[in-house]
């Protein structure tokens, strides 16, 4: 492969070449941007769902507080709370070990 080191050499089809090079780089960029846009859309959907869940948990906690610790069928005695905490910890551990999180 013969080469020249002089940048800026006037090739006959330089104008045409620039179009091809720009086209190739723009296509690659476009592919990545489209992928990122799809990912961003999914992220927004997930974020909305998390916001909704947070609101539901807040409402539940508020209702629980108003009902003096008994709300939505939740018994919040010390023993039951401990059991629930233990159960949640076990569930979280199962998720962590399953997905190595």
């Amino acid at each position: 492969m013969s080469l020249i080191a002089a940048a800026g050499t006037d090739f006959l089809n330089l104008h045409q070449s620039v179009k091809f090079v720009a086209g190739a780089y723009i296509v690659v960029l476009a592919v990545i941007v489209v992928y990122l846009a799809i990912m961003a859309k999914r992220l927004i959907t997930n974020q909305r769902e998390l916001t909704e869940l947070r609101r539901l948990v807040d409402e539940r906690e508020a209702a629980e507080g108003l009902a003096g610790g008994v709300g939505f069928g939740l018994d919040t005695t010390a023993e039951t709370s401990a059991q629930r905490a233990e159960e949640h910890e076990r569930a979280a551990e199962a998720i962590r070990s399953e997905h190595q999180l």
Partner: protein
Amino acid sequence: MSTHAKHLRGLTIATLVTLTAGLALTFFYAPIELNEGFVQKIFYVHVPLAIISLMGYVAGGVFGLMYLRTGKKVWDLRSYCAIHMSLIFSIGGLISGAIWAKAAWGHWWVWSEPTLVSYLIVVLLFCTYQPLRFSIEDPERQSTYAAVFAVVGGAFVPLNFIVVRLSVQYLHPRVLNLEGGQLPASMATAFYVMVAAIALLFVTLMKYEMLAKSTRMETRRLRRRVLGDDAVAPVSRSAAPV
């Protein structure tokens, strides 16, 4: 913080820096090639995309093998994301290659060129990966069959590459060989930096996708815990691991 999210910020910055450096070297440092002229600049993005996508397919196969060995879902997720990213990079590689071929050879595609056709065969083979997953409803079976496919497909990639290398007649320029390649130092520097940049981009996007998928799974679990099983619609059939 999940393992997918670890080092993601640093990885993203490293990717952006390397990519910027690679593009700067490509356009301001590497000389213009005598025979092809400015069109040769396409090669700095086209070849790394092709190489990294092929390596991604092989990585998908290795992750599939790890899933079959361990049964851990995370390997299935890694295999899926690696193949998914490789397909995206392949699309970029194929289109940029077609543009280069039009500029250099006067044709968008040359069917008599073994490198092009073999690469297309690999891409088409892996295009069936997602439909295969989608066609299997049971998540366990889906993961197992997909892993077997990934292993076989991943093993096919180097075999395909070697067979094409052994073929005598070809038009495609050779960038890398056992003697260290045909590139002069200035071009090689730009080329290897671009390969590193594309590899980093691959890893970063793959990690982002894995993080997004695991976050989605966690959200579903959280929803089930907060609202109960009945309140959460069953997971619809999906090609992605659930």
